[in-house]
């Protein structure tokens, strides 16, 4: 494939290249802002239509957070909900012919760093800075370098898993579309018949199944690590 599988540069702002990742993130952000504005404009005591769906979603996220992190950490639900909804939309972007923003390691590393800082910030806040930092010397002080390396592995693991899954699916789908187009041209078909039907099951697996599952795993691990640091 020409130019590789990396995100294309769409335009530049003051010499800073703006890639597809950034523009697609803007599109997803705009759609989510629009959705939240439309969904929360007219609330009624007896929910109807869209309000039912939104209440179900919010209630589900609050229940999930309470069950995973504990009722005392319910305050994290808005962040976890935002993360989950953004990741689901980003991973499903491939279905709408957009390059998923999570197919760029910068996006996933950014999200994983938020989790990393949350783990340490809330850990310190709950236990106190001294007691928290003393935990790095457990069980014996000589283990300090190993403890530091093991903490650094968390954001790398979080970001590489999500990035690897999404970019793997993207590359396989690009190769498949390229191969099917070549096959069609070889047979002499003027219409893209092969591309219309054959990739559907693979889209279902790589975009829908893997995308939603990975979003869930990322949010779940964020909840588990933050609550583990605080307990």
């Amino acid at each position, binding site marked *: 494939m020409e130019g590789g599988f990396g995100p294309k540069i769409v335009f530049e702002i003051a010499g800073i290249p703006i890639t597809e990742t950034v523009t697609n993130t803007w599109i997803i952000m705009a759609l989510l802002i629009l959705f939240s504005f439309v969904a929360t404009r007219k609330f009624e005591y007896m929910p109807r239509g869209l309000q039912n769906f939104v209440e179900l979603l919010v209630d589900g996220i609050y229940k999930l957070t309470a069950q995973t992190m504990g009722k005392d950490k319910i305050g994290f639900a808005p962040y976890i909900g935002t993360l989950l909804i953004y990741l689901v939309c980003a991973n499903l972007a491939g279905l709408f012919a957009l390059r998923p923003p999570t197919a760029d390691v910068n996006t996933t590393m950014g999200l994983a760093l938020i989790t990393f800082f949350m783990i340490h910030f809330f850990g310190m806040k709950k236990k106190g800075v001294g007691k928290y930092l003393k935990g790095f010397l457990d069980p014996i002080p000589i283990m300090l*370098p*190993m403890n530091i*390396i*093991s903490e650094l592995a968390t954001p790398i693991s979080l970001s*590489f*898993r999500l990035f690897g899954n999404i970019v793997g699916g993207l590359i396989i789908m690009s190769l498949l579309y390229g191969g099917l187009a070549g096959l069609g041209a070889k047979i002499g078909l003027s219409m893209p018949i092969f591309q219309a039907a054959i990739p559907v099951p693979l889209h279902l697996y790589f975009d829908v199944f893997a995308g939603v599952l990975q979003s*869930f795993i990322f949010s779940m691990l964020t909840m*588990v690590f933050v609550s*583990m640091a605080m307990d």
Partner: protein
Amino acid sequence: MSRDVPNIFKNLALLTHIGMIMMIPIFGAVYLGSLVDEKLGTNHIFLIVFIILGVGSGFLNVYKTIMKNIKKQK
């Protein structure tokens, strides 16, 4: 949502995580060790030291994650 569904996902997420947190420190250590050896011109000394650190921290990672979860589930 059933009470067990978040638990299933939580364990599935940890299952995928444990493999990676064991592997990442070892790969990181090999990379860093060979980089330091190359820069300082030493003969694999740092590579060996870093591999020992990486393997140790990989083990520590898995041990800590599993023990914390066992304690939490009790």
